[in-house]
């Protein structure tokens, strides 16, 4: 009983803190929060831009590499499996979701990541 309550509050705490931390700059807070109650306000271009930004911020990617929607993590960026895992965790953090291991194994390029995020209703 008690542990249940604690767990519940911990979950609530985590989601709220994540939400405030990850709110993208630009949209006004009030507008953003009211939007996010009804639907995920993400469109594909938006997601793509953010994923690409995350990939660019990764210091193990080759700096000169041009990153676009078709970029393949291993082939184009020269990432090994551990690097890919780090990148996927970063993408998870960016969109405040947790990608299950089975799905994550299949994500090998920017476009696949974008597709997954777009299909996930909890992403924001």
């Amino acid at each position: 009983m008690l542990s249940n309550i604690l767990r519940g509050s911990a979950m609530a705490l985590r989601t709220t803190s994540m939400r405030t931390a990850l709110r993208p700059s630009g949209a006004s807070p009030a507008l953003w929060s009211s939007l996010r109650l009804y639907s995920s306000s993400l469109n594909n271009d938006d997601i793509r831009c953010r994923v690409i930004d995350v990939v660019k911020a990764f210091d193990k990617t080759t700096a000169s590499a041009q990153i676009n929607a078709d970029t393949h993590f291993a082939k184009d960026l020269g990432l090994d499996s551990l690097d890919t895992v780090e990148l996927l965790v970063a993408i998870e953090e960016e969109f405040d979701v947790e990608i299950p291991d089975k799905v994550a194994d299949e994500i090998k390029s920017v476009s696949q990541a974008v597709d997954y995020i777009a299909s996930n209703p909890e992403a924001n």
Partner: protein
Amino acid sequence: MSSSQILSTYKQLIRSLVKSSKRSRITQMQENNKKQMALLTYKKIGLMRQQASNNAAVSKNPHSVRELHELTKKIEELKSSNPGSLKTLHFYNNSSRLRQIIFQDLSSSETALNKRLQHLRDFAGFVKNQLEFEQLVERYNPGLKMDQEEKVKRTAAKVGLQVPA
């Protein structure tokens, strides 16, 4: 089989480390920004003083005017920057060292490997729960992270007084 296990363990570890280090990194960056801003403001004031004293004698030096302008711009930039939105925060910045520690002398025997993986999973769990614990402690004790000024203000407000501005 074991490689996918290693990957998923590594993922748990990275995930927990990124989450737990994020907040402290954000505060650190904010502190740094503040320091930088104070420094720049100090420089700016010094420059302005110099200009004021020079002004009487010589006409305005275009070089110092430009410098002043640049300083103002930099301060504005720092003021508007938001460290929380940086994408680099999503990465654990010391992962090569971490990998070195984890994967050195990785033995090939099944039991030893399983033991090592279990240890890493425990570690990831510990980091994650520690973060949750800290957040809860903070939430239940709001005064914990308040600075002195805020505390005084709130204490005064409790008895219907206001701290003079």
